């Protein structure tokens, strides 16, 4: 916890003179504002631990204002707002499992699965005979995400995408 926000430690460098006080130079991401800051602590200093918990929940639906998730074991439901879902809204697939970070029981971040399968709703018909490579073409997916796909992939097909890089992986195995 820092300035009232739960934080994630990105890097921690141990600094210690041979004869002297040890320090930790820490790079921190504030989970609410998303700000990345650097701070130096004296070794042994303590900060309040954040009551943060990652849970695996299935995505259900969006009502336009909230995105609803469900715990498949307890059937307990949780609604995340736009701030928590953020950019990842474009990777939400119904019934897919996402990692929801809860702080004091409320969702503050939504992380989709590393790979998701989505249907192409619109893309230019590619040139015949083209196989892989050559840069590809943009394709709009059912979730609204736009990714580059090879020319041979067509509207209506389901593809597998890496959500961390936003890159096309392959056609879905159906």
């Amino acid at each position, binding site marked *: 916890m820092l300035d009232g926000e739960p934080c994630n430690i990105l890097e921690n460098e141990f*600094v210690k003179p041979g004869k002297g006080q*040890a320090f930790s130079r820490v790079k921190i991401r504030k989970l609410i504002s998303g700000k990345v800051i650097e701070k130096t602590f004296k070794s042994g200093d303590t900060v309040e631990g954040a009551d943060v918990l990652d849970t695996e929940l299935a995505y259900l639906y969006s009502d336009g204002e909230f995105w609803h998730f469900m715990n498949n074991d307890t059937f307990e439901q949780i609604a995340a707002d736009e701030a928590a879902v953020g950019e990842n809204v474009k990777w939400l697939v119904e019934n897919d499992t996402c990692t929801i970070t809860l702080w004091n029981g409320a969702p503050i971040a939504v992380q989709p699965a590393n790979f998701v399968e989505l249907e192409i709703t619109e893309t230019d018909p590619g040139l015949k005979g083209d196989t892989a490579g050559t840069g590809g073409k943009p394709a709009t997916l059912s979730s609204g995400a736009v990714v580059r796909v090879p020319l041979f992939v067509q509207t209506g097909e389901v593809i597998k995408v890496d959500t961390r890089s936003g890159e096309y992986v392959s056609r879905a195995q159906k």
Partner: protein
Amino acid sequence: MQSNNWRPSASIAALKQRALVLRKIRHFFAERDVLEVDTPALSHATVTDEHLHSFSTQFQHPFAPQSQTLYLQTSPEFAMKRLLSAGSGAIYQICKSFRNEETGRFHNPEFTMLEWYRPGFNHVQLMSEIDDLIQMVLECEPAEKKTYQALFKQHLNCDPLTATLDELKTLAKHHGYGELAAEENNRDTLLMLLFSQQVEPHIGQDRPCFVADFPASQAALAQISATNPLVAERFELYFQGIELANGFHELTDSVEQLSRFERDNKQRQKRGLDRMPIDQNFIAAIESGLPECAGVALGIDRLLMLALKCNKIEQVIAFENSRA
């Protein structure tokens, strides 16, 4: 995870270079008639410095009803000075030293120390010998010499020897350490913070840099200067952002030494740390007559990091701690 942890953290090529550097160092001292010695890693007493944390273990003597606490040495200093007092003459040692609560890019809880003592030398003469050794191993330019005070003034526009606690707090706050500074009431902690974060990164980039005349409050086992009571005859060597060595014109006054150890223990108690047993054999050795001498401890692993252009200590030691 499990699969690759048996492998060394350093390459075999790096380990060959390591062996070569150690051979060169031994040759350097043989030529200068400095005797290689080997002192205990386990001792009944240990360092009292509040910033050093010794590992301890239990020794069960086969005929004793109770076990005894022994400490792994954080440096071979005390035992080597006992040899000096016993008339050894110039000595050096290459050994493992152990420091708890230290790990990172430049730290491993056990590391290899080169420590040597020169009776009849002062710290200035010793710096020149260190310079020769470093040039031989790293094939670099001769080192430059600066004082702690001059560097602090140059980079922070503040005199570290006379600045008040409040002035140091303001300076730390100005450099972005406001929260740490607000609760810190130890001048030396603030000096260490400012020096390590704001000065060290700027020094010894092109050639090694000796920083001499540390504040008297950070004297450790060094003599206080006869000409300026605000500074100690203590120096450090830096090169390319790495703190490589720490040396002293050694304190030879047993009463002063004992009182510094007792002061350390009081400071430990204040911070809720355990008092450490003072090495009475060491005090007795100084009392019986530690010759005027200068001594230095140099981190071999860090020297190798510089020689092999590695940026992590694990790249120059066979098995860093998590694989040990």
